[in-house]
């Protein structure tokens, strides 16, 4: 019964979304506050309906109600509770339901922040948001209904894909979706501005926190996915340039550009048309990512079920929204008043360069991801575009951007002085070059990329923090006064510095992978495998039986330079219901590095295959991402954003002061 109610609530949400789409749009056109006020009310109602529907499905999972097809196919009564909950979105139908739930959640939050958003803008924004909700609700109800029943009801379920039976499933998809779907708000605001034909710094100030929030969540979601793949797949890799990963990287790159361009718009009332376009493109890339992952054009752990009908439907949504919004852009953008131009050497000039590089890098990822699909459709040739392509095209575009980053962050608004800026960074340059040379000397004969990359990372970290130091301390200032001053700096300054330092930490982590060591061998009990300074000894192989799987666990003692430093266990599991084997890597964390071992097949002579890695500083890759997201979060708490924008746009200066 609850399941049917959930289904009904979903259909009700569709009807309410239609109201949320049509009435406010008309109201904004007719300038009727009563009609416009329908927008927030209906947005809240849509959210309530979808939330109920989601809870109904969760209820079916918790009760192992196998008369629901979706539960039968993806759950099992012996599955631990956490995977019963996270299993709700560990399948196609449920994950689409989570998608619209988050879409509706964002709509609801826009609805309750009515005091800080002008009414017309809010009405138009929620109408556009409703259009997206309608499309995805139709998609769920017609092609991916999670509430379909099975008659007769099976006694036991088919269990969740074992690779997904991991705490990662509870965290990664929600974080990623909040990021992906969060950009729908920037998109809706951009379309609303185009419908209204008016855009100004107030718009940028309203949109920026949404974009920043979505960006921070997307950063966390991608990092979490990367770490999950790293420990779960047992190959020791953390990024494979797999199309599914690229599908999340593209909106991240565009979103990063958007976060920066809205700053320019807010502070200098410039880059308006570009910012609007970028907001549209960012969400379009999110939609494209959803299409790539969910349609089955790519086969991966993310494409739960391949069904051509679904692919066609999402492609339709994709074309409708990308085509529609770009057409709207082409029609209305020329009417937007252009902002002022500005000096090339200035903070805003640097941010333009940032946008240029990020957008171009995003384009190369786009080409590398979609070219194989296009080629196959056109010529039938099957190709794979892998890491070599992306390393060759992406890195040369990102490295110059990173080199310019601390300079850009130090430049003044309006008119910067390049030499003066460089002087403020002398110490940073010096220390980074010194660090590179010292590392190079110590690792002489090793890969050159590692010291160079770490040098770049150190430069980024110091360059970002230098901004805080030079703004709060000068020669002769007592430290206590400097600390007070630093604490008084705007939160956005701290957020920027932290986020950029996070980039540096990630760069250090990535560069240090060049020092990684890999060894492989077949071990009998008591035998050893050596990789660099590290060594493991196979102690024993223990068979175990758990609730929904059985496993053989290899216990390894880890030695560094001959001294015992710990033990790790790596398992070969067999999930009984699906008859599917998985490998669980054993990981020993030493400082920021990790010793990583995974078990292979048992050999006829009684030995087992063991692959051993040592990965120095590898944790910095994800710590850096975390710091980036925290930086974004701190920026969000900036006073300027908390207090909200002054309401009527009329009081804004009518023309931007030209930057001369």
């Amino acid at each position, binding site marked *: 019964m609850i399941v049917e109610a959930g289904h009904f609530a979903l259909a009700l949400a569709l009807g309410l979304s239609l109201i949320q789409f049509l009435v406010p749009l008309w109201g904004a056109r007719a300038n009727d506050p009563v009609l416009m006020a329908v927008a927030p009310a209906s947005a809240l109602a849509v959210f309530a309906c979808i939330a109920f529907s989601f809870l109904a499905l969760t209820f079916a999972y918790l009760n192992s109600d196998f008369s629901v097809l979706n539960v039968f196919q993806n759950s099992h009564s012996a599955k631990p509770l956490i995977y019963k909950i996270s299993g709700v979105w560990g399948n196609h139908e449920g994950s689409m339901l989570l998608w619209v739930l988050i879409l509706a959640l964002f709509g609801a939050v826009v609805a309750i922040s009515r005091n800080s958003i002008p009414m017309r803008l809010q009405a138009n924004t929620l109408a556009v948001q409703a259009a997206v909700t309608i499309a995805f609700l139709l998609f769920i109800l017609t092609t991916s209904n999670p509430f379909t029943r*099975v008659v007769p009801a099976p006694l036991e379920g*088919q269990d969740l894909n074992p690779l997904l039976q991991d705490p990662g499933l509870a965290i990664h998809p929600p974080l990623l979706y909040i990021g992906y779907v969060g950009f729908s708000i920037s998109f809706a605001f951009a379309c609303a501005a185009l419908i209204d034909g008016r855009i100004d710094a107030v718009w940028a100030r309203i949109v920026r926190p949404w974009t920043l929030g979505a960006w921070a969540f997307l950063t966390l979601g991608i990092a979490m996915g990367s770490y999950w793949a790293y420990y779960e797949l047992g190959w020791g890799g953390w990024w494979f340039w797999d199309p599914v990963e690229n599908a999340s990287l593209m909106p991240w790159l565009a979103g990063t550009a958007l976060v920066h361009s809205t700053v320019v718009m807010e502070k200098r009332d410039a880059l308006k048309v570009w910012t609007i376009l970028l907001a549209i493109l960012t969400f379009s890339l999110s939609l494209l990512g959803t299409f790539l992952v969910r349609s089955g054009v790519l086969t991966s752990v993310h494409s739960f079920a391949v069904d051509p009908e679904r692919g066609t439907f999402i492609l339709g949504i994709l074309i409708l929204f990308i085509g529609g919004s770009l057409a709207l852009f082409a029609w209305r953008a020329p009417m937007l008043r252009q902002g002022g*131009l500005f000096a090339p050497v200035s903070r805003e000039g640097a941010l333009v360069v940032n946008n240029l590089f990020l957008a171009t890098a995003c384009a190369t990822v786009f080409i590398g991801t979609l070219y194989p699909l296009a080629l196959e459709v056109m010529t039938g040739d099957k*190709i794979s575009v*892998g890491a070599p392509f992306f390393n060759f*095209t992406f890195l*040369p575009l990102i490295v110059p951007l990173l080199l310019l980053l601390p300079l850009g962050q130090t430049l003044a608004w309006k008119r910067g002085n390049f030499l003066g800026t460089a002087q403020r960074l002398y110490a940073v340059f010096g220390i980074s070059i010194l660090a590179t040379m010292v590392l190079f000397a110590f690792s002489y004969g090793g890969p050159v990329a590692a010291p160079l990359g770490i040098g770049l990372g150190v430069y980024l970290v110091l360059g970002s923090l230098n901004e805080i130091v030079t703004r709060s301390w000068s020669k002769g200032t007592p430290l206590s006064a400097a600390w007070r001053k630093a604490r008084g700096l705007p939160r956005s300054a701290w957020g920027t510095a932290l986020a950029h330092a996070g980039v540096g930490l990630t760069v250090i982590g990535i560069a240090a992978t060049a020092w990684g060591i890999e060894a492989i061998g077949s071990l009998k009990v008591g035998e050893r495998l050596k990789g660099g300074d590290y060594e493991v000894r196979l102690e024993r192989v223990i068979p175990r039986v758990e609730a929904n799987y059985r496993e053989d666990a290899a216990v390894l003692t880890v030695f560094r330079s001959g001294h015992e430093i710990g033990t790790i266990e790596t398992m070969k599991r067999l999930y009984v219901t699906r008859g599917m084997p998985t490998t669980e890597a054993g990981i020993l964390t030493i400082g920021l590095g990790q010793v990583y071992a995974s078990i292979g097949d048992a050999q006829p002579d009684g030995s087992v295959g063991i692959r051993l890695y040592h990965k120095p500083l590898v944790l910095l890759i994800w710590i850096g991402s975390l710091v980036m997201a925290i930086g974004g979060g701190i920026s969000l708490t900036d006073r300027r954003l908390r207090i909200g924008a002054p309401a009527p746009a009329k009081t804004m200066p009518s023309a931007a002061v030209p930057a001369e």
Partner: protein
Amino acid sequence: MTRKQRRLTLIGVAGCVLAVALGLVLYAMNDTIVFFNSPADIQAKSVQPGTRIRLGGLVKEGSVQRGADQQITFEVMDAEATIKVNYKGLLPDLFREGQGVVAEGILESPSAFRADSVLAKHDENYMPREVADTLKKQGHWQGEADASPKTQ
């Protein structure tokens, strides 16, 4: 600088970056892209030894041999041809005889292939799409058993 000069500077810089990116992409397209081939394709297209390719097909029953230190050889076949594959490393969990596989590496001779990665399947139903397509084309596709009961 006048307004016009500024605009030109911006367009110039953007043009340069885009041109560099385009150059990189075109160069990489020639150099880093790996074609997918079935054993029959390799003979039909007479792929040159030394070429980096992705090889896909079925693992021949009874062909997997394990040597010392995780040296593994197996044969990949389709309806028309068979190629011997050498690989050192751990095989993915779902690697099985008689099942589909995709290996990436260097073609050493028309009948021998050295793989540096053997791609994993993500679940037991998953047949690499390229392999499935090839088999369908050759008329050897039986389809996957539909495990789910009829829905109402």
